[in-house]
């Protein structure tokens, strides 16, 4: 399984610490207004249009609700989201992101994070927790401990420049339910994450493993046409032989063939399409078949022309 790099993410991580470490003070966003304003200003240098990435007045109101800028009343400890910056995701992709938390002055048990509002993205959780996510090590964030939670994001191909999710955290302190967390100096019951989205711009698919395949004259054999996906996902994958070079061919599905596992090819996945070569009447020699693969990516058709080398050998 591959690990992705930072992509377009270049933001400075806001490290939230209490008063003990003023050198790591936040950006001074203390008025409860748009908590992502710093993110926007630094996001790859690109202009950010809140309307374009789906933010509306409801988001602003929700973020201000339950916010408390008075950090003097921390009710005997804090749970802190050490940074609300997340890496960019690729449109059409499915990825896991993580958020790191710290407890100061308390032990938080039964720690849970739920996405309560999503715009432009689907959120899901680890299989062992199902309807929420919790900390990686266990469900307890001890005083001074750092740990992270992971969420799965399904980002559609038509995602705009950024997608937003709103998270709610719940935990217990000495058996008492709490839901407040600190982001910077602001105490809140809702955390809004702005997740930058980058468009996929490379090749969708490549034909791979181009070594010649052998068929014995007078008999027949299946030949493999292998493809690797590079785009996050393509659907409806089909392959046809556009020039059989004089060989007799048969498809498993009428007049085309598809991939063995399914008609979907995802990034990093290699699958094969198969065609049966009937060499019962073929003369030994080298043959080059022309093939064409076709697919759909978010409703947009794509295709790739290629060749397959077949060697018919004498029995």
């Amino acid at each position: 399984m591959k690990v992705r790099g930072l992509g377009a993410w270049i933001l400075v991580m806001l490290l939230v610490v209490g008063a003990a470490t003023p050198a790591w003070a936040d950006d001074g966003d203390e008025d409860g207004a748009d908590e992502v304003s710093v993110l926007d200003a630094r996001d790859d240098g690109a202009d950010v249009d809140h309307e374009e990435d789906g933010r509306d007045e409801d988001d602003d109101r929700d973020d201000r609700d339950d916010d408390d800028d008075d950090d003097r009343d921390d009710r005997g400890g804090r749970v802190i989201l050490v940074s609300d910056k997340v890496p960019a995701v690729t449109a059409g992709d499915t990825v896991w992101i993580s958020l790191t938390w710290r407890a100061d002055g308390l032990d938080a048990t039964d720690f849970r994070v739920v996405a309560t509002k999503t715009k432009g993205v689907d959120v899901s959780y680890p299989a062992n927790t199902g309807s929420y996510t919790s900390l990686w090590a266990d469900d307890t964030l001890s005083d001074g401990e750092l740990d992270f939670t992971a969420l799965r994001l399904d980002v559609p191909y038509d995602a705009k420049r950024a997608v937003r999710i709103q998270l709610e955290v719940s935990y217990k302190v000495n058996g008492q339910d709490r839901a407040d967390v600190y982001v910077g100096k602001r105490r809140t019951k809702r955390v809004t994450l702005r997740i930058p989205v980058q468009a996929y711009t490379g090749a969708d698919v490549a034909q791979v493993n181009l070594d010649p395949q052998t068929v014995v004259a007078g008999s027949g054999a299946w030949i493999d046409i292998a493809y690797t996906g590079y785009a996050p996902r393509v659907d409806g994958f089909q392959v046809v032989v556009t020039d059989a070079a004089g060989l007799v061919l048969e498809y498993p599905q009428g007049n085309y063939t598809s991939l063995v596992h399914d008609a979907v090819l995802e990034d990093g996945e290699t699958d094969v399409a198969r065609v049966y070569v009937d060499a019962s009447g073929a003369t030994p020699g080298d043959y080059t078949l022309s093939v064409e693969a076709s697919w759909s990516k978010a409703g947009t058709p794509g295709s790739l022309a290629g060749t397959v080398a077949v060697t018919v050998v004498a029995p």
Partner: protein
Amino acid sequence: MRSVATAVVFAVVLAACGGLGAADREALARLEGRWMCDVQRFTFEDVGAIESELEARVVAAGYAVSDYAEFKAILAETPDLREQVRKAYEEYCA
């Protein structure tokens, strides 16, 4: 996550026997602090990829997964060690 969690159960016993020395704990605290920073900077294909990345870091640092599990068990009981992790995080995530 489950493999590490399982190892933690056994590591509790090992922790009582003091399997990791002070230098090991310091090294793993540095690893942990950096990991807590990096895990949020990357996307992962799936949960297994997160586990694999962590395990690769542990091995690259010269430790076994069981050592890390023991460290995590000790971490839960040792505020000073958690403070070391926090300092390592702050130094790395500047």
